[in-house]
């Protein structure tokens, strides 16, 4: 069982720069072809400062910071046992290429179901702009599949 003493654990803060090349790569990987997501001029014509970060792109801020890997190491969970359970984003301001963001992540809950066969780890992240304003709230729920012999 994952020790619930880790509830409240703050993961090391990180910075994330929103790069145009990464945004174009993300567009390619997700089949996005609309010009405002690929072409700076089209993005500006659509009212953005530069290429906008698509709605789910900023998961990369968490992932690049390595906090998920760190979290799994801290909790002693092998990566092959995790599934993504839930994901949510609450948007406060648009994020565009060139923005330099800070990421603050913490473990906000740990609980189990099915007699310990499944455990859930809730991670909440605040993503802030260079002025310190929160632009995005991210919540991820990871599901850990435990082998039967480990289940309580």
């Amino acid at each position: 069982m994952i020790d619930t003493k880790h509830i409240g654990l703050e993961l090391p803060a990180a910075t994330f720069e929103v790069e145009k090349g990464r945004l174009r790569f993300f567009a390619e990987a997700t089949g996005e072809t609309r010009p405002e997501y690929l072409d700076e001029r089209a993005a500006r014509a659509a009212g953005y400062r530069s290429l906008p970060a698509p709605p789910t792109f900023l998961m990369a801020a968490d992932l690049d910071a390595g906090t998920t890997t760190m979290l799994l190491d801290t909790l002693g969970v092998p990566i092959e046992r995790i599934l993504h359970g839930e994901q949510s984003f609450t948007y406060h301001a648009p994020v565009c290429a060139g923005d330099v963001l800070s990421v603050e992540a913490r473990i906000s809950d740990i609980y189990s179901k099915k007699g310990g066969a499944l455990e859930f780890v809730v991670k909440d992240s605040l993503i802030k702009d260079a002025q310190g304003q929160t632009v995005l709230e991210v919540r991820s729920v990871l599901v850990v599949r435990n082998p039967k012999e480990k289940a309580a």
Partner: protein
Amino acid sequence: MKTPHRDEVGIGQELPPLRLPPVTRTTLALFAGASGDHNPIHIDSDFAKSAGMPDVFAHGMLSMAYLGRFLTQWAPQTQLRRFSVRFAAITPVGARLTCTGKVTELTEGDGEALARLEIGVIDDAGEVKLVGEALVALA
């Protein structure tokens, strides 16, 4: 793109579906790099098999990214206030996914008119892969 107007949006209204090409291993490799999710279970068949899975399977966030495209083809991204999903089933290589959604509530928040949408991703056998909800600010 025009923001949907509150007078033109009704409860039960369906959004135009987004049909995706079959998920390929190439898609998963590209998405691993672009998204920053390098978990080998999505890109390395040997690893996936050693973890007891029949093969690699798609990142849940790939389907959520498709849902993001789906939502932002209905309303500009700047109107999106909240977007949440629950991952219901694994998406194998070869799956043909479709994003669907409909308006379930018209409400208000922070002085804005909002549409609550029930959204989902299904495969061509009708299996639900993701279910979720979005809040979109209306004009």
